[in-house]
């Protein structure tokens, strides 16, 4: 257990004080000895990657842990010990004194209840709202607070609302009983970039106005720094660093925090290579009893693994759990500086006269309900040159995935022409077998979700040989050699060939799926959000892999993403797709530095800084 003197904030009596909170499930530790403190009106962020235990910590505070997950330790809320309260009294506290907001706006609202009713439900026991008109007026006022001025919204069902709108309604419901503390668990992650920024800004505004305390649970370090007073960095079940947002951002004390900062692709510049943290996030009980980060840390020594380093005050108000802090502080600072210096503008491939891929006036229509026609793409034209990396940026519903799928022949465009390496490829089913095979070998796709991109019943070797089969006959020796070579190209050990996808991490699966698309020696890779489902530290590894592969194999990329910072790191040119139309195009530097279309401007201003 971490022996920690006291994590005191400036205020004498904190609203929330968590001591030695240990969460476990079935005898396995999920978090170990978490200490948290939150003053009235303060905003803190718990930052961590998947599996860090951040969400369960939040749930433990509200005593809403799933069954079979237990918590020990003390949670004192305004002097009251929440852990000791009977469930009946705890119910009085939830909603009234502390409230929660969850990630997925689409499942958070009851699908059979009108959105206004979600708020009314929370106000039902207040005598002053007995009267129907008074209640309706109050619901309207509450919706107004979260920026919903259209009185119609209260009458709508959740499925009629957009994601951002649902999240607003959920926020109004969470705030309906005027809690002193709001815990927001990834409130913006499931939303589009521009909506994300709106929701976070709204959350901050409401918090300030009400003087409410806020705990923001997020994986996004940049978001945490821009919205919170203090930061708690959590990793594999333990806190590694605590401090004020400004101080942690300027000078991280723990190598993990530094690693996260360096892994995060900067939106304002393109770096030659992101400095990624190697390996992947371990399970908490795998690294219990030592520094949880030691296995991935470049500075780890034997003493880091000898015992769990305590979280101690290393500077006023700054807590860190690195016992080598003083020895390595200078090196860490140098690395940070070096990472910023390596930022050089990559050579933008000159637009070639003979593009490898040319798509002209692509229209894709779907028949919607009751005979309506949905136009997903409204005449989109793009070009990709040999060895060029092109970004396709847009939000959900912009048609960016449809365009990607159309280019690789998974969808047939309603009209328009596609030419790939000189072969007309508008309609795959109408092509000759020779042309179709040639085109399949030229263009391949990497998919978003690493968990379903590989056949769960096929070993890695099987997945790769299936791909090899499509380009010809090989002897077993040739096949094995090629599989080994492909694995090497994506930096996976050869022994991985016998593994099943279920035993691979998200990043490893994405590497295998990249290897699979490389098996046919393609010239163009269409990458549909290939890193958006990965942890930040792993995301940097994969982005570096894409960069290396491009240099080694001379690949062209079409990088489909909603994340401008990601596209900045890999793309030479950018197309911005909005509601099925290209609204802006140009070199990555130019578009990001001087966006012309209002939508692009909005997109860029949404990046948390």
């Amino acid at each position, binding site marked *: 257990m971490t022996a920690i003197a006291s994590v005191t904030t400036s205020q004498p009596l904190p609203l929330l004080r968590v001591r030695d909170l240990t969460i476990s*499930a*079935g*005898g*396995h530790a999920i978090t170990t000895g978490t200490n948290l403190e939150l003053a009235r009106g303060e905003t803190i962020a718990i930052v961590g990657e998947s599996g860090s235990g951040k969400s369960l910590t939040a749930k433990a505070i509200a005593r809403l842990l799933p069954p*079979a997950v237990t918590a020990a330790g003390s949670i004192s809320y305004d002097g009251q010990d929440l852990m000791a309260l009977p469930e009946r009294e705890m119910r009085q506290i939830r909603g009234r004194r502390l409230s929660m907001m969850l990630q997925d706006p689409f499942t958070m609202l009851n699908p059979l209840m009108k959105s206004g009713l979600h708020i009314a439900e929370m106000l039902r026991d207040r005598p002053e709202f007995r009267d129907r008109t008074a209640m309706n007026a109050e619901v309207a006022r509450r919706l107004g607070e979260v920026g919903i001025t259209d009185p119609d919204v209260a009458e709508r069902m959740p499925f009629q609302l957009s994601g951002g709108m649902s999240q607003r309604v959920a926020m109004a419901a969470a705030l309906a009983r005027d809690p002193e503390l709001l815990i927001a668990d990834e409130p913006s992650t499931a939303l589009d970039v521009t909506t994300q920024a709106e929701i976070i800004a709204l959350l901050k505004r409401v918090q300030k106005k009400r003087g409410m305390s806020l705990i923001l649970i997020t994986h996004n370090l940049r978001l945490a720094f821009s919205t919170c007073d203090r930061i708690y960095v959590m990793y594999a079940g333990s806190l590694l660093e605590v401090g004020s947002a400004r101080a942690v951002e300027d000078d991280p004390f723990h190598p993990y925090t530094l690693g996260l900062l360096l892994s995060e692709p900067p939106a304002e510049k393109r770096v030659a290579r992101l400095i990624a943290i190697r390996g992947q996030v371990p399970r908490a009980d795998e690294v219990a009893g030592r520094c949880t980060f030691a296995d991935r840390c470049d500075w780890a020594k034997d003493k880091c693994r000898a015992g769990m380093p305590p979280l101690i005050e290393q500077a006023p108000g700054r807590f860190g759990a690195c016992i080598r802090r003083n020895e390595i502080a200078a090196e860490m600072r140098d690395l940070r500086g070096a990472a910023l210096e390596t930022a050089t503008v990559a050579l933008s491939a000159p637009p070639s006269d003979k593009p490898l891929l040319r798509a002209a006036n692509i229209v894709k229509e779907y028949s919607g309900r009751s005979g309506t026609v949905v136009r997903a793409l409204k005449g989109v034209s793009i070009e990709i040159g040999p060895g060029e990396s092109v970004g396709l940026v847009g939000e959900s519903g912009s048609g960016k995935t449809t365009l990607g*799928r159309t280019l*690789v*022949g*998974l969808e047939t465009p309603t009209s328009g022409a596609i030419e790939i390496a000189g072969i007309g490829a508008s309609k795959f089913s109408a092509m000759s077998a020779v042309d*179709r*095979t040639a085109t*399949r*070998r030229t263009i*391949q*796709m990497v*998919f*978003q*979700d690493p968990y*379903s*991109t*590989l*056949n*769960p*019943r*096929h070993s890695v070797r099987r997945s790769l040989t*299936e*791909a090899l*089969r*499509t380009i010809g006959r090989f002897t077993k020796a040739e096949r094995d050699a090629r599989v080994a070579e492909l694995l090497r190209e994506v930096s996976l050990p050869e022994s991985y060939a016998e593994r099943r996808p279920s035993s691979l991490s998200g990043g490893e699966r994405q590497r295998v*799926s990249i290897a*699979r*698309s490389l*098996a*046919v020696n393609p010239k163009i890779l269409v990458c549909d959000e290939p890193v958006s489902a990965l942890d930040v530290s792993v995301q940097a590894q994969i982005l570096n892999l894409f960069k290396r592969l491009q240099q080694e194999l001379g690949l062209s990329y079409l990088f489909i993403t909603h994340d401008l910072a990601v596209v900045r790191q890999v793309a030479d040119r950018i197309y911005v797709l909005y509601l099925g139309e290209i609204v802006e195009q140009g070199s990555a530097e130019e578009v990001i530095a001087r966006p012309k279309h209002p939508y692009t401007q909005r997109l860029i201003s949404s990046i948390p800084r």
Partner: protein
Amino acid sequence: MSLHIESAKPEAGTPRARISLGIALAFIVIAIVVFCALFGASIAPDSPFTQRLEVGDAPPSGQFLAGTDLLGRDVFSRVIYGAWTALVGPLVVAVGAWVIATVLGLLSGYLGGMVDSATMRWVDFMLALPAPLIAIVVVGVVGGGYWTAVLVLIILFTAPDTRIVRSAVLEQRPRPYIDAARALGISKTRILFVHILPNVLPIVLAYVVLDFAFALVNLAGLSFLGLGVEPGTPDWGRMLFENRTILFTNPVALLLPAFMIILTAVSMNLIGDWLFERLTR
């Protein structure tokens, strides 16, 4: 139809190593039945056909462990021999329905369109029929006994199984790994049988085991009505019919085959549930 005698689920976090007592017993029962079906001739104490009219329906004794029936045949030996028809027919029904349903379900789920509509309307039609009644009518009119009944049951069981395979295929079809295979230019047949089939097989397999239990009960029912096996064949359903009149003189002659039908069907159901839990997790 599914029975849970105790929670077969392992505790969260621990590997699925443990088998509950119920499952273990179910496997033992099926093993014994299979053994009897294969080696009945060598383990039965007596021939199932030897008639001893002078003995008649005697209660269990040292010589006849389960007594004798009206014709003085050894009931115990007849139950052992009866394992054959209790096993073979249901097995053929289960495997037959499984193969046909898998092919139809794969095609209908993956190809969609006309193939899908045609198959599903056929399934709807089949499901609207009262299955046991159809079997009785067909076997009664066409004749042919046991094997006609098996054939009819294959056709009847194919319909619901096709629907199950189809829904499993529909679940796999939109997954990116199928898109990836399509983008690589892998042929439709290969996608169906090499990429999708292994992912739907476990679900189907669990249902096949349940089919076996249904078929066992159905075939025994038809035999009881005299529409199954030839008269005189040692068969559990047939024995129920033949020995119903001696319930009070030698109740074992009736209760033992009845007990075996129930025990085998329940065991198969348990194994089916267990397989489903295990394979679809």
